[in-house]
């Protein structure tokens, strides 16, 4: 039985092994789609490749991508986090408020990360100790954190942020903007942890089969808790970039971001049911969504059509995954 079930895979034996390995990577379809879309936009959308245009979009993609790196681990572990929109807002207020009163870069950044860690820990504790489904916990937190922003600030915006606090959003090193450097460094760090640490391996194991992981002596609770905390850390860092770029914080900061992040993770190729995916997938998804949104603006798609187009393109990107599975005769995961 097992032999027979495994055999259909060998039908792709004619394909060179290297190509096959690349195509089997979870982010392959999104990456191909991204390259094709970029080529199309380079020819059809005027100004797509302009440095000014790229620069304008980088911060948004970086904020999305940094948070997606964290949520990606949560999704890999078999859970989900849809609280990050409000979490980013709250972290941004922490960064902004500390920046406003204390100035400097490090203190506001730490305030943002600290706020994120607290919020992420609450998520993690409710999911693992409280045994409440993560979609419900983080949905509740999405509203609760947004409510906290309104209560704490009384609806006041922060506008007076000193430029040294904004360094992460504004500066560039050797011609490369700081947000991009941060994104690349975090991608490498998170991917390294994911592939080479026991915790990273445990995330895949718990997401692949939580029961078997528990029976093998892994702590499914601790593993998932840490994934939620990682989301908090990364959201705090993203908040510093966000504040640096925007120069101010409104009470609706980050609203709607939660679903973009989940979309980035899933479109990128991480399985929504856990256990399969990569950090590269999350970043690919984030860039893809950023490019789509930018392309729609450049092509003068009317504002009321943009959501519909984004949705259609996400569905198109995901269906290429189904196509790939069929090409490679891979079992759906």
């Amino acid at each position, binding site marked *: *039985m*097992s*032999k*027979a079930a*495994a*055999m*259909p*895979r*060998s*039908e*792709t*034996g004619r394909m060179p092994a290297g190509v096959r390995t690349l195509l089997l990577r979870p982010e392959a379809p999104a990456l191909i789609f991204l390259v094709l879309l970029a080529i199309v936009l380079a020819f059809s959308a005027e100004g797509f490749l302009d440095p000014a245009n790229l620069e304008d979009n980088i911060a948004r993609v970086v904020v999305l991508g940094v948070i997606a790196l964290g949520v990606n681990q949560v999704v890999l572990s078999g859970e989900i986090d849809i609280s990050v929109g409000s979490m980013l807002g709250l972290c941004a207020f922490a960064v902004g408020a500390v920046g406003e009163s204390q100035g400097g870069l490090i203190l506001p950044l730490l305030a943002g990360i600290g706020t994120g860690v607290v919020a992420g820990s609450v998520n993690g504790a409710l999911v693992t100790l409280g045994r409440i489904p993560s979609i419900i916990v983080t949905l509740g937190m999405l509203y609760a954190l947004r409510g906290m922003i309104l209560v704490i600030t009384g609806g006041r915006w922060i506008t007076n942020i000193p430029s040294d606090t904004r360094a992460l959003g504004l500066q560039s090193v050797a011609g490369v903007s700081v947000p991009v450097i941060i994104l690349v460094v975090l991608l490498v760090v998170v991917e390294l942890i994911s592939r*080479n*640490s*026991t*915790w990273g*391996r*445990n995330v*895949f*194991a718990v997401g*692949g*089969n939580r*029961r*078997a*992981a*528990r*029976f*093998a*002596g*892994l*702590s499914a609770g601790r593993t998932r808790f840490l994934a939620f905390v990682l989301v908090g850390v990364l959201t705090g860092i993203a908040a510093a970039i966000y504040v640096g770029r925007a120069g101010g914080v409104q009470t609706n900061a980050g609203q709607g971001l939660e679903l973009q992040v989940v979309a980035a993770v899933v479109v990128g190729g991480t399985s929504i049911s856990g*256990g*399969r995916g990569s950090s590269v997938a999350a970043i690919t998804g984030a860039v893809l969504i950023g490019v789509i949104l930018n392309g729609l603006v450049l092509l003068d798609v009317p504002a009321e059509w943009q959501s519909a187009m984004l949705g259609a393109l996400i569905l198109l990107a995901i269906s290429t995954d189904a196509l790939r599975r069929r090409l490679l005769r891979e*079992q759906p*995961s």
Partner: protein
Amino acid sequence: MGLTKRFGGVTAIDGVDFDLLPGEVHALVGENGAGKSTLMKIVHGLYAPDEGRLEVEGRQVTFVSSRDAEAAGVAMIPQELDLFPELSVAENLYVGRHRPRSWWGGLDWTAMRTEARRQFETLGIDIDVTLPARLLSTANRQIVLIARALMGDARAVIMDEPTSSLTEREVQRLFEVIKDLTERGVGVVYVSHRLDEVFTIADRISVLRDGLHIKTAPVSELDSEELVRLMVGRALSELFVRNPHQHGSIALELKGLSRSSEFTDIDLTIHRGEVVGLAGLIGAGRTELAQAVFGIRPVESGEIYIDGERVSFHSPQEAMNRGVVYVPEERQSQGLILPFPIYANITLSILQKIARAGFLNYDRERKTTDRFADALSIRGADVSEPISRLSGGNQQKAMIAKSLACEPSILLLDEPTRGVDVGAKSEIYRLIDQLGQDGKAILLISSELEEVLSMADRVVVMREGRITAEFDRDEATQERVMAAAAGVEEKAGAAEL
């Protein structure tokens, strides 16, 4: 007729002829990977043959889906029990079929239940058809699947390993159902690893090996030795391996262990180098007991001692740290991370140990894996292949390798040879024997009486959560163990006790 099925470059079955007469039981045997399931999936329309043709009652047919096969009267009871847990028994019978409708077009529940009850009556079995399927015992789920297969007026029924999760008594009941079917002229294809069953129930036996049809013969012309030889292609002189074991001090001792509605007042000791067989019917509380010792289920009262020291485990991790490992019976749902490669499954429990400061060293991981994969002769695979590609027997061995990697002193093996072919079985027995010689304490939970009787130094029998009997190796017989497991008063035995 001359059926061939290729998957890529690999030929899964090659020119196999197979026929089924009305009213006969035709057993199909062979090791895992011999092509039994592939053949039956072609017959049931799940795969299309690359060569050869199918005939039903002399007419050539082409099945594009299993629905076509069912329409032609060919039903299949799959190896995996795939009922819908939240639907009632009656609803499960009607899944994928035309359901009766009431006058306004809604579902006619009364008619469905009545028909379902009638179906079970003809099988001579009493099941409450309004119960959700998740509340049924494994045996009853099997019965429901048989009833479902027969709903469509099947003339041929394929049973793929129907007894892999049944106990002896339930197997007897299944055999009665099969006899009933054949008396009604239904032909039954019986796919199984268990040779004793094949000899009990079959009229004819066909042997497949490596996708080739080796032999078809009436059961009277074969004996089990000959059959094993045909299946594995070599004489298998001794399936069970047993060397004398040196028993040392007490490794594991349970005193009055209880957990409400699962097991009560369990006293049990296992010495170093001793294999204790734990027999009983499914639902007797054996798995629950082992899982409680392993720290998966909290113990409510009673004490556990390891090497004379009192312990209480709150997680499998704690149990493993004290040298206790549990090999679960459900490979796919409890034992393995299916998307993982073989090596990552084997090192799952020892990652902390082979990591430095929380980071993994792939070289070291591969070396550790190779050591255990070689020792267990997990064949035909690169350890970086996904574990889902291994045969059942090799998956089982990988699961045991994962436990051995923890360097345990006490092993709790839960149905270690379930759904495993003869060759792998023999290797697992050799391994258990070797572990015993190495001084490990082993609890062998098994529903296969022959296995318990042949492998264990001592047999403990559980029924309804209690230990009902204990036999030394020389005293244990099939009859005595069965009587204690089923709760039947054994007259001769009772007098002796």
